[in-house]
């Protein structure tokens, strides 16, 4: 009983010195970004960081996607990193992930809509272009081999920008906070001496969570089929495509990943979304990232130590 009393005192003491946090929401990277920060901190620079990187990512994508076949591109250091990451994800996913998936998904109207099925001819041509071209660059130069090829770093660039925003916050003296870009988030430091509590949304009910975890200095990201998709003839077309089958990924409802940085969590949540259960269990061991999978038959799989973050 004495221990219990002590525990209670600790709780009451903790309550007495509550940190004051504020939430600021704004739109960036095509989503609602929410920054949780100490009240006295200015977010001006943080928002500028986000906007700057978003611009760098977008402008290269646009230049490449609009260019005719045979065009050459200088690769900036930022894009060299992004390409290398995309090749890592391609390897982990056994070619299911490809930075050029947009060549196909854009034919369906992703990311912004209006959505519809593409004509078989257009689809076949884009699929052919991806299959036959390696997209490699030499000496920092990239050549667009086929006019139909389009790239998007959307699957992991958002996470990387979250990491940059966190860096800026820390440079400005922040010891704790959260940057959450539409579900891809990094939570650093602590809140009132305890870890941050993060819920994983239920695919069918925005008010429900399928898991609650406590994290500090960790990133969490989720990929699901319920935010960006359309229905046609009773079939769900989600925005994540498997570049081996060249079809929308349909293994799961949602996949969440915990990692040490948001870029990894973001990228791997997409990669695991494409991997069958056994392969996902394998891959999370290799990457050292806990994974939560919500299946079509409402099973919740916790892999590689996910439970250890639940409390």
């Amino acid at each position, binding site marked *: *009983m004495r221990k219990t009393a002590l525990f209670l005192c600790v*709780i009451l003491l903790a309550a007495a010195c*509550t940190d004051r946090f504020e939430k600021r929401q704004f739109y960036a990277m095509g989503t609602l970004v929410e920054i*949780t920060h100490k009240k006295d901190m200015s977010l001006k620079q943080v928002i500028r960081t986000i906007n700057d990187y978003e611009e760098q990512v977008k402008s290269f994508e646009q230049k490449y996607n609009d260019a005719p076949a045979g065009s050459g591109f200088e690769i900036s250091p930022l894009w060299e990193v992004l390409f290398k990451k995309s090749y890592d994800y391609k390897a982990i996913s056994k070619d299911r992930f490809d930075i050029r998936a947009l060549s196909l998904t854009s034919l369906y109207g992703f990311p912004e809509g209006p959505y519809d099925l593409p004509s078989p001819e257009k689809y076949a041509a884009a699929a052919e272009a991806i299959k036959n071209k390696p997209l490699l660059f030499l000496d920092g130069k990239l050549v667009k081999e086929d006019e139909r090829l389009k790239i998007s770093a959307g699957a992991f660039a958002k996470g990387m920008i979250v990491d940059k925003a966190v860096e800026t916050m820390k440079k400005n003296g922040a010891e704790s906070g959260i940057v959450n870009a539409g579900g891809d*988030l990094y939570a650093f430091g602590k809140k009132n001496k305890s870890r941050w*509590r993060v819920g994983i*949304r239920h695919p069918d009910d925005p008010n429900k969570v399928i898991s609650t975890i406590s994290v500090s200095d960790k990133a*969490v990201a*989720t990929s699901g089929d319920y935010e960006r998709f359309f229905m046609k003839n009773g079939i769900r077309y989600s925005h994540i495509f498997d570049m081996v089958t060249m079809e929308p990924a349909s293994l799961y409802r949602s996949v969440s990943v915990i990692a040490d940085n948001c870029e990894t969590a973001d990228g791997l949540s997409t990669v695991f979304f494409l991997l069958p259960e056994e392969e996902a269990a394998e891959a999370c061991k290799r990457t050292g990232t806990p994974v939560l999978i919500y299946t079509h038959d409402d099973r919740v799989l916790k892999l590689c130590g996910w439970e250890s973050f639940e409390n």
Partner: protein
Amino acid sequence: MRIKAADIIVIILLFCSVFFIKNLFIASGAPVLVLITEKGEKELSFKDQLYDLKEETGHEMIVEVKDGKARIKESDCPNQICVLTGWVSSCGDAAVCIPNKVAVYVKCENEDDGLDAVSR
């Protein structure tokens, strides 16, 4: 006193609810007085009155609400922590009786789920 597994679960739940409230950000919504027992959570009125929890909890316990504050006035638990906690009135305040699995806390409206962020 012997503690069973179910007791531990309830104790943990009670603690979690307290943490949940303690961890809320600065609250501005209208506060609600909440009573948690083994049977669940229920809202109490802020109107002056006494709640006898004998039937609800099987324990000799009385919760008093007065002048917009609440306290556990009487309890048959051994070391009376909940009674000694005294009055609770502002957002996040709680009086908790672990042996009897009873807590009174002041919940504030602006935070719905006690989560700092949601990944989706």
